[in-house]
Structure formats: structure tokens, C-alpha cells
């Protein structure tokens, strides 16, 4: 299986802060890969680095054979990367429909994808004319994911999808992400190890700006010592 994304020894900055100090991993095509680690370890910055939203000073990021480090974020995204940020970043002055429509890269994207999207999220169809922020937290998360699906994205970067959601809704979301992964590769940042272990086949652990371990999720699940060491919980 080939790798859709290769992150090679990157060092990244947000403003003047040197956040990532050597992060290195690959993402096999069609997989779900979870980035794990404690708060502030650099997981979100890793996602932002891939998209060019954090400045990559050293190392390489190769997406579908193209070196993307140093490119403008909009150019990188246009190569086919969808982003679901933490805290959802729903546009509050836009209606639900506009929140989806703005993600179109070609005219008619939303129309051609609407069957697929509303099949996954039947709720959104009911609320098309509401303001984005009038939705509940769970619905906003669904909208944020739906927004990343409007354009043809072969890679989805999803940051903390379970954060602040009720258990029932988390269950629904896990199903949704599973379905998504049939079409796109998914890179997931997840605090909740249970959620991550249910979804991901591969894992990468990031600790203090470095990638310290990676491999198959089922191996990690078996290794209680490692879970305890890096993630604190088990």
C-alpha cells in the first residue's frame, strides 16, 4: 500500500515559537491514522503544518508525490485536503447551507455531493437556513465534517472530533468517520483514546513536539505500558 502523505522530520513554528521539533510519520492511503499525545504536545500544530497554516522551517511534507511545505495554505488545500479544525470553526454569519457552499472548489460541488452528505447527516438538511451557530455542538461538528466533504478531498484532517460531545453523538460520529474512510484517507487528532482506538488502524504518538512512536493501533492497544507512559491513561 502506498503512502498518500509523508511527513519527514519537520520543524514547525507558530509565530516565533518552535512547536514541532522533528515530527516524522507516514499515512498509508485509505487508512485512518490517529495522532495521539498529551495536551500541548503538538498534534494540532502537526495538522496545521500539513496545511501550511503553521510555518514549516525544516523537513518535508509530501502529499501525493508533491512537496507542499512552503506552499500557500489555499494551494495545499486545493490539492485535495479537507480540514475539520478543533472547535469546529463554523462561520457564524453564514447559514448552514452557505457554510457548505463556501467549501465548493468547483461550481456544483455541493449539488453533486449533497446526496452523500445528507445521507450521512440527515439533520443538516433540516437546518439549511439556520445560522451556523444556532446549531447544537454535535450538529456543528457534523457541519464541520460535512464542509470538508463538499470538495473532492482525498485526505481529511480531523481535529478532536469527539471534544465536548455527548456519548450518543460520539457513537454516531465514529460511524460517520468510518464511512468516510472508505472514500478518503483520514488523519485524526483525538484525546479520547477509546474513540481513537475504535477508529484508527495506525497511530502516531507525539510528545513535546517530537514523534516518539508509531505503528499499528492493535499493537498499541496491547501495550499497556506504552499507553500509560505517553498518554497517561489506560
Amino acid at each position, binding site marked *: 500500500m502506498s503512502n498518500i502523505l509523508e511527513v519527514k522530520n519537520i520543524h514547525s513554528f507558530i509565530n516565533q515559537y518552535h512547536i514541532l521539533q522533528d515530527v516524522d510519520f507516514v499515512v498509508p492511503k485509505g487508512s485512518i491514522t490517529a495522532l495521539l499525545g498529551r495536551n500541548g504536545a503538538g498534534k494540532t500544530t502537526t495538522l496545521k503544518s500539513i496545511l501550511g497554516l503553521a510555518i514549516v522551517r525544516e523537513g518535508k511534507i509530501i502529499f501525493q508525490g508533491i512537496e507542499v511545505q512552503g506552499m500557500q495554505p489555499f494551494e495545499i*488545500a486545493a490539492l485535495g485536503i479537507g480540514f475539520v479544525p478543533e472547535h469546529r470553526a463554523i462561520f457564524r*454569519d453564514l447559514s448552514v447551507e452557505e457554510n457548505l*457552499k463556501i467549501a465548493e472548489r468547483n461550481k456544483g460541488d455541493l449539488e453533486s455531493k449533497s446526496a452523500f452528505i445528507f445521507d450521512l447527516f440527515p439533520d443538516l438538511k433540516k437546518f439549511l437556513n439556520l445560522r451556523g451557530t444556532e446549531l447544537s455542538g454535535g450538529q456543528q461538528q457534523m457541519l464541520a465534517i460535512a464542509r470538508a466533504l463538499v470538495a473532492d478531498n482525498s485526505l481529511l484532517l480531523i481535529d478532536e472530533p469527539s471534544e465536548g460531545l455527548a456519548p450518543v453523538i460520539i457513537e454516531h460520529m465514529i460511524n460517520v468517520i468510518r464511512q468516510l474512510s472508505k472514500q478518503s484517507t483520514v488523519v485524526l487528532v483525538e484525546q479520547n483514546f477509546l474513540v481513537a482506538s475504535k477508529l484508527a488502524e495506525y497511530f502516531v504518538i507525539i510528545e513535546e513536539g517530537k514523534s516518539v512512536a508509531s505503528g499499528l493501533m492493535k499493537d498499541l492497544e496491547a501495550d499497556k505500558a506504552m499507553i500509560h507512559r505517553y498518554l497517561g491513561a489506560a
Partner: protein
Amino acid sequence: MKTNLRKNSKAIIVLTVIAVFLFVAARGMSGKDVLITVLRGFSIGSVTFLVAAGFSLIFGLLDVLNLAQGTLYMIGAYVGWTVYVRPDTFVDLLTPILLILAGFAFSALWGRLAGLVKLAPKPRKTIAWLLILVGFGLLAVVLTRYPIAKWDLDVYTESPITYSYMADQGMRIIPAEVAFDRISPFLALAGLLLTSAISAFGIALLNRDENRSKSITWRKLLVPGILLLVGILAAVFNSRITSWMFNMSTNLLFVIAILIAVLSGVGLGALMETTLIRPLYNRPIYQLMLTLGLGTIGLQIVQAVWGRPEFVFPKPEFFIGTGGACPATNIRDLFANHCSTILLLGGRVRVYDEIFIPIVGIIVLILVWILLKRSRIGMIIRAGVQDRQMVEALGINVRRVFTLVFALGVGLAAFGGALAASSSGLTPTMGERLLLSALIALAIGGLTSFPGAALGSLLVGLIQQFMIKYGQIGIPLPFTDAVFKPSPPLVPASTVLLMVVVLLILPHGLLGTKE
């Protein structure tokens, strides 16, 4: 609805108080005075709105306080005047401007050529700067030798004041043409194109990585091609276009003048944003200093080119009819006789100043509103105001939208200037006063709120006009025989007072939201 009312209760109370205040103020006047005062308030409000709207759009999306907005308003007025009163100067200028733009606009070509140059970074940089310097130097030489018919500030009979007066009197005489005597026509045209091309190529050499991989498509060559063609045609048919413009209906000429003023505003805005503002996005203090400085430079340039004295921007023929049938008593007469005034409630209302300008202001308000609410660009702007990074992460080139919004904002200010000049006249200080009014209007309405800009501008215009009117008729003070006449300095002070009161109660303005 109910929650909306509760959320905005303070704003509603303040607005009600202002409305009651204005109502009481209106009760002290006769009906025709009220009408004229309100219409003038709308007129001033409309012009203020054009500047304030641009300001608010730019600030909302880019977080840049463009303090040059007042100067750009003034430049719009002077550009419009030039096209309207001296079309010959405009036609003469058209060729050099278009050819220089064409030289730079072939950027796809220069980028591709620069990509072919294989040089080490250091000599490459040296050569690039050398080319830029040589290009601009030669360009300056060609430009100074290019013949452009112009007024003469030192000779009264050839000053802008005289030309304005003549145009106002309907004497549209084509001034003497300036011949190509210091440079041959062919050399001038080729020189303009070549020197700007050299500079543009130098700039392309500097940005090494960009454009290299991008291919040249016909669409990329279309715009510069058109610029080039139109520029050359303007040179070839110079005197014919000039006499055509001098003989056309002044209504049409007026529309052309306004359009050119808006276009020059848009062009200046795009140039400002891409070259000067863009490197300073994360440094607000530098932006303030930059835009303030640009405003001053613009002011000095305008004074040097058009002179300090005030002169008029003659109104087009549609608005200057006089004679037996005027003032018009109804709309049909107005259109039949093109009267400059119309009788409403027994008062003479000036058609251009007090009816036309407010109508244009409302039309612009509606158009920009539609742009913001209905178009994709508007959607991106509304989203970008909140979260620029997320918009970019969707694959949208936010920078290009930034340039567009900046250009649009400046274009609106230039439009306001050209529109207002016919009613207020042209003076180099016209921009400063208006910038202040616009800032006060924005503070009252809410800095990033587009409807707030409109509401604030209207309130500023109304309060100013009521104060001016009461300065003439006086306010009888209760329980005494004395009459209080607000003196002229109280007019701007009253708007500041309103701003202070509003901000004390609503720190974000009437329609502003918390950040």
C-alpha cells in the same frame, strides 16, 4: 424576535432617543425647512457613507484602518474633474497609463522568462535590481518627454479655476494640442512599453519561485493585450477622441468621469494593497503610519498638480436647467426641463445635491448589500471577517479577496469624492473633513458593521444639517426671550458629542458586535 429585542434593547433605546430628539428639533421648524434639512442630511450622509462603507469593509476583513481613505476620496474628485473639464488631458494621459499597465500586466510572460534564466541567487538579485532601476529611470525620462496637454497653475487664464468656470458656463473649447516635439511618437510608445517591461521583468526575476511552473495561457495574455491595444488606439486617435468627448452630452461625460474616478480608485487601492499593505498585515501600528503617510503624500501631490485654491466641478446639463419653467413643480416637469431645483412643500430643493446624491447613496447601499449577502465573494468576505485561516484551509485564495475588498473600498471612497465634488466643490482639504465624519459615523454605527456604517453616516449627516439650520433660525430658549444660535464650530462638535454619548452607553456602537 423577542430575544432580538432584548439583546439590542440598549441600541433601540438610544435610537429612539435620537429619533425623539430629531423629531423635537424638527418641530421647531417650518415644514419646508425640515424637508430641506433632512434631504441635506441624507445627502451628506450618503457621501459620508461611501467613505465609511469602504473603511468598514477594509477594516472588517483586513483589520487595516485605512487612514488614507479621505485623501483617496479627494483624489476621486480631482480625477473626475479632470476627465469632465479637461477631457484632452485625460485622453493624453490614457496612452502612457495603459501602456505602462500593459508592460506590467504581461507578468505571466515575464515570470516564465525569468524562470528560464539560470543564475546563482546573488548575481540574479543584483541584475534584477539593476533592471528595475534602469527600467524605472528610463520610464521617467520617457514620461517627462511625453506631451500631455495640461492647465497652468501660474497663469490665471489657464488655471483649473478658469477652465472650471468656462465649463460651468457651457463654453467647451478644446485647448491647444501639445505636439510630440521632444520625442518621436513611435519612440514614446515603444519606450513606455519597453521600460515598463524591463522593470516588470526585473521584479519577476526577484520572485524566483513563483510563476515558474505556471504555463502561459491565452487568457493571461488577453488583459494586457487589450490594455496595449486600447493604449495604442488612444494615441493614434487622440485628437478625434478628444473632440468627441468635448462635444458629447455633458450627462454622458459626467458618467464617464465618475466611472474613471471609481476605476482609478480601484486601481490605486489594488496597487496600495499588493505593494505596501500586504507586507504589514501583522503590524497594525505600521499600517496606521503607512496609510496616514500615504494620505499626506497624496494631499501634497494633489496640491502640486491641481493647486490649492478651491474650484467648482460643473454639474452636467441634466441638473442645471433654469428659466421660466423652473423650478419644477412635479417630476414630469423636472425631467422635461432638467431644472436645477424642484419645489417641494413650498421650498426649493436642489435636484443634484439633495435628491440625486441620496438616491445614489441608497443604490450603492443596496448593491453592496447584495454583493455581501448574495454573491460568493460576499460569502467569503463574511466568513473571512470571522476566521481567515479556516477560509484559506478550504482552498480559497483569501489574499486575492483581500486585494479585491481593498480596491472596492477605495473605489467607493473615490466614487463619493467624484459625486460630492459637483455639490461641494473641490479643495485639497475636502478629504480630511470627510475622513473625520466617516470615522465618527463608524464609531456611532459600529466599526465592522456594514449597516452600522450606513446608519452612523445618516445620523452624522442629519445632526450636522440640523445644527446648521438652527444656526440660521436660532433656538428660542425656554422661560427667556433669548435665542440661541449654534455657531458653525458647534456643527462638527455636535457629531462628536453624539459619538461620545453613544459610545458611553454602547461601547461597540449602535449595530456593532463584541469582538
